[in-house]
């Protein structure tokens, strides 16, 4: 299944930080999301300077890093995951750029830096795509080329402020799906659904890839309204990381946390499906 196929029906795309709060629990949490109905999973490879994240995800990253998450371990994590839906790796460019792997010849000329070894390893681990929030299309060609070589999709984020030339450049390079940022700001669950969402969706309306809307989605009802507005999927991160954080704060049994994540996933997936019914005219049926 390619990444875009996962959007054949309104998709629920959850995000978690790999290894948050520890390797074992995190595996079970990701698997719980699939049980709850996830169609694609964005799995964060934590980076020490997550400039695009809100406080919730930032704290999740701090937890994962202090529990020992690291690039090679991340790939092992993905390999250990028992899920069937596509995994998209979300991380920052420096981790991609620095990766040299273990094979030694992966990067072409010895010591040559670049994204190729990372993508090769990601492909090997079964990762379907990448989202790199600090990589604008202007700087993306080496990564795009490596993704093409190894058959990965490269997802870009369209912001409410993205217009004109910038939109065109992104449209040329994007594959898998486009991540439509619902509002200005960084990630973080909020209580309302932004009016900017409609306008943002409209700007990418005629793109060929599915449109997944993220940033601030928290409830099934949010998901429903967003899908009703025309999105092909909803991306939910902070609302889920919040559950992980609460589990840590209250020292809960990871199995209970996993169950709660699964329940939340069900709510969100149901919301997305409900939203599809309200659409006029339906786009993907």
């Amino acid at each position, binding site marked *: 299944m390619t990444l875009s196929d996962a959007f054949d029906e309104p998709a629920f795309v959850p995000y978690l930080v790999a290894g948050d709060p520890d390797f074992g629990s995190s595996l079970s949490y990701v698997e719980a999301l699939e049980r709850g109905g996830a169609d694609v999973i964005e799995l964060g490879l934590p980076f020490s300077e997550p400039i695009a994240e809100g406080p919730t995800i930032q704290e999740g990253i701090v937890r994962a890093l202090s529990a020992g998450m690291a690039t090679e371990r991340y790939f092992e994590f993905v390999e250990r995951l028992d899920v069937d839906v596509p995994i998209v790796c979300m991380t920052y460019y420096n981790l991609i750029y620095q990766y040299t792997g273990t094979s030694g010849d992966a990067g072409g000329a010895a010591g040559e830096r670049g994204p190729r070894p990372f993508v090769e390893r990601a492909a090997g681990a079964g990762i379907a795509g990448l989202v790199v929030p*600090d990589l604008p299309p*202007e700087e993306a060609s080496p990564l795009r080329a490596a993704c093409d070589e190894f058959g990965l999709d490269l997802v870009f984020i369209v*912001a409410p402020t993205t217009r004109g030339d910038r939109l065109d450049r992104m449209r040329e390079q994007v594959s898998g799906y486009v991540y439509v*940022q619902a509002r200005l700001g*960084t990630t973080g669950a909020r209580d309302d659904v932004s009016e900017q969402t409609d306008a943002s969706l409209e700007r990418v309306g005629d793109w060929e890839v599915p449109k997944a809307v993220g940033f601030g989605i928290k409830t099934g009802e949010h998901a429903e309204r967003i899908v009703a507005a025309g999105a092909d999927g909803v991306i939910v991160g902070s609302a889920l990381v919040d559950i992980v954080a609460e589990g840590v704060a209250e020292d809960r049994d990871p199995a209970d946390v996993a169950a709660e994540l699964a329940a939340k996933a069900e709510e969100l997936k149901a919301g997305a499906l409900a939203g599809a019914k309200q659409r006029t005219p339906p786009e993907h049926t």
Partner: protein
Amino acid sequence: MSSKTDGKFGEYGGQYVPEALMPAIEELTDAYERYVLDNEDGFMDEFRRRMREFGGRPTPLQPAEQLSARYDTDVYLKREDLLHGGAHKLNNALGQVLLAKYMGKERIIAETGAGQHGTATAMAGAHLDMPCEIYMGETDIARQRPNVFRMRINGAEVTPVTTGRGTLKEAISETMRDWAKTVENTHYVIGSIVGPHPFPAMVRDFQALISEEARSQAQEAEGRLPDAVLACAGGGSNTMGAFHNFVDEESVDLYAVEAGGSSLSVDEEAGVAPNSASLSTGEEGVLHGARTRVLQDGDGQIMESHSVSAGLDYAGVGPELAHLVDTGRVDAVNVDDDAALEAFHRLSQLEGVIPALETAHAFAYLEEHRGDLGESVVVNVSGRGDKDLETVIEETAERDLSIAPDMDLFREIGGGML
């Protein structure tokens, strides 16, 4: 974009930022080109005027008589410590706040660690009547109270950042986060010559007043250019400011003196580098929006850096400086904490100028290489040391520095620290 502002210095530089910020970055690039490069609406004239009237420029190029005798070399001090606020930081802060005004922004934000950039920005904000919010880690707030208070009395909001360890790094993230939400009416006044294009080029152009003056002052004093220019390097803004107008003069050696901290080796396991020498020991990487030299582990995780001077304690460095080091134009050197502390005391005693601990690094290098640096040497005094008194007392007490004054007086009189 014109080649002048493609934002690349060799392989370094660029714009590695979240998409939400790109429109603001493009708007800023446009403003930079028009106002700074082309002096549209007389922007640069106003900037220079305000730096004279409000900032106290030109700062003197002082012959350092006792150091000159000690090293048998003509040593000159470029006195940025005399700038309003006590450091070179105002050149950049005032330039950016003024630019924000020209751009029609209604609000500025900035991050600060030790508080030097925050205080400079707050001063510039008050001067130009621009509302100002400074993000600062709560740990830093607790240990830098005088600077927090200076910002508050200049009318700035100081917003504590409580994530992570509550230090500079989290403050930068929080400021970016604010900016990502508020780009339309807000300008982010970055604190050094780092970040995505156009920041490195723009900050350099504002800080270049230092070498513009130093160059003509040195000409006047000696009838020729100096043989060497020394500046400490954290992010590298005072460094590039001091170097810029000498870069094309092959005869002038340029030394960027980094913080060697307690050791140049790193603890990969703990993710800690007990130094801040990203030019000397870092690797190419992407940090805070730009490709540059970075202290990082094998994976690319950014290390915690360390230096006795808070202002040098940064894991990255400006991309242009990294490029000039790679091409051999600038020598990246470093001195350790002990040498910097000794140099702090030496300059204070010999010249009556109490330097910032950051600045002291440049003087420590001068001491170690007396004689090798030519006949006429300019050292950039990037800031004054008043802010460092407490650190110097503590760090001196832990060491056996023959040059340090004894502190018995303080023990006798009792009472707390400063």
